[in-house]
């Protein structure tokens, strides 16, 4: 294992020190491992918090700031945060208008956020609504599993719901917008390599030089199939076609097309993939209204990419275009 770290056991704390040093507009509660807006709480604004295991940066801490999240709870690498962290974050951002919890659909995340919401409400009376993302079409049998995983749509949801909250909308309305984003977005990923968890020290799984895993999760969970490596144009089809068929997306739909890097794949390859994704969407008559290309929800050093498509209307597009100022996304300001 070759990593730029001091000690595997201090990776999360050391990274939080870096976030605090690099972004003076943000604050860090080191005891609870919470990154939050320096101007929290904003009176009368719905607070939005998220969180999850670390190792997916910039998700979630890199999305804290104006127009997006108010706070993010950092768990250990690939381990959900504990309820105390969500209680602390909820209290830090509660401006009297309630707090939205954005939770990716993993059993640990869902259970810990549920307990955090119950404890925060019991302690302070704050109104909490949770919205769970579950956009990964790779999980086909959602009846006999823990359900679809929350992946790329989480990034788009945090931006769009964040804008709705920034406009001063109420908790119920912000939560509705968030649910609408989750309902209209689908994702699929592929890994060319495993990732290496610092505390483990060796790759989570083995993939041959000539293989890739289709439908992989963001923690190295196995996907639908292990296949011989193919050119980008074929990989794009394997990722996009199941997404289009699932919602389904139809000719004439407008989408936000998001090609995401899993951490170990350079941007040049993500653009190679994006070109193929755009070609396939055009062939299906799907209009790309906006695009996002880059590593935004990663899996440590995993090489690979995911594609997320979100069907949008004018309202969602307006919220997407609204100003945002966070470490990882900033425009309109």
């Amino acid at each position, binding site marked *: 294992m070759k990593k730029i770290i001091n000690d595997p056991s201090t990776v999360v704390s050391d990274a939080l020190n870096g976030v605090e040093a690099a972004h003076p507009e943000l604050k860090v509660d080191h005891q609870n491992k919470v990154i939050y807006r320096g101007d929290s709480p904003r009176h009368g604004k719905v607070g939005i918090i998220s969180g999850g295991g670390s190792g997916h940066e910039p998700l979630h801490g890199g999305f804290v700031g104006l127009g997006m999240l108010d706070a993010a709870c950092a*768990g*250990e690498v*690939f*381990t*959900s*945060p*504990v*309820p*105390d962290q969500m209680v602390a974050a909820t209290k830090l951002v509660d401006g009297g208008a309630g707090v939205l919890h954005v939770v990716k659909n*993993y*059993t*640990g995340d869902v*259970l*810990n956020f*549920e*307990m955090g919401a119950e404890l925060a409400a019991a302690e302070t009376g704050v109104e909490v609504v949770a919205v769970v993302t579950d956009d990964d079409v790779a*999980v086909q*049998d959602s009846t*006999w*599993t*823990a359900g679809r*995983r929350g992946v790329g749509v989480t990034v788009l949801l945090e931006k769009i719901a964040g804008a709705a909250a920034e406009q001063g909308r109420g908790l119920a309305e912000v939560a509705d917008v968030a649910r609408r984003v989750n309902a209209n977005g689908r994702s699929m990923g592929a890994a060319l390599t495993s990732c290496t*968890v610092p*505390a*483990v020290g060796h790759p*989570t799984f083995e993939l041959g030089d000539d293989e890739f895993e289709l439908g992989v*999760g963001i*923690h*190295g*969970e*196995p996907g639908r199939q292990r296949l011989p490596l193919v050119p980008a144009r074929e990989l794009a089809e394997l990722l996009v076609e199941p997404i289009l068929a699932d919602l389904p997306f139809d000719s004439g739909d407008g989408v936000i097309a998001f090609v995401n890097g899993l951490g170990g794949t350079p941007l040049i390859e993500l653009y190679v993939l994006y070109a193929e994704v755009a070609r396939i969407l055009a062939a299906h008559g799907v209009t790309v209204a906006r695009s996002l290309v880059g590593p935004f929800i990663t899996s440590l050093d995993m090489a690979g990419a995911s594609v997320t498509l979100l069907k949008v209307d004018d309202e969602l597009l307006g919220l997407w275009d609204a100003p945002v100022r966070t470490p990882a996304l900033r425009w309109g300001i």
Partner: protein
Amino acid sequence: MTNSVTGAAIDGWLRAFARLVAEHEDELTRLDAAIGDADHGANMNRGLTAAAVALDELAAGDPPPAAGPRLTKVGMTLISTVGGAAGPLFGTFFLRMGNALAEQETPTALAAALRAGLAGVVQRGKAEAGDKTMYDALAPAVAAVETALAAGGSLADALAAASKAAEDGCAATVPLVARKGRASYLGERSVGHQDPGATTVSLFFRAALDSGVAG
């Protein structure tokens, strides 16, 4: 032979559990690596190490607390320190057990507390029999305690039966297809592996035999 569930007896049981999990940390992590994300042993050991410190603080109290508050404290500590799905599930188990046991020290009260703990796990995790989870070891163990006591058995008889039932339930998870948690994404590929959470439950009941609680 005692037939009473004192604060000291529960203290011994919980510490024996912490020791067993520490001894089996690598095994639990190996089981989790096969069908989960390879952190169950480390997470449970971190939580139970913190729980042992909390038990030290409680034991120093004057008067030392009864069994119920000690279980509650361990539950709260696990919820705050373990993370993942295991933190809320094992934490809720001990929390509900402690709240149900309160000041009572009879074997029947312990059986009722175990039943309340199980109900908490089901409420939070929504697992059913055969989902390949901690439920598959815990539910038979709780039933075994109730059956043994109803048949006039001693606390020691009941806990021995529980330990046997938990181990059998744990072994019975091997051929199952996982339907909950991260292991469920493996589908058929989860067959042939023992569930790590069920394994931890069997360590909990084995710990009862290693400690003073069973007399």
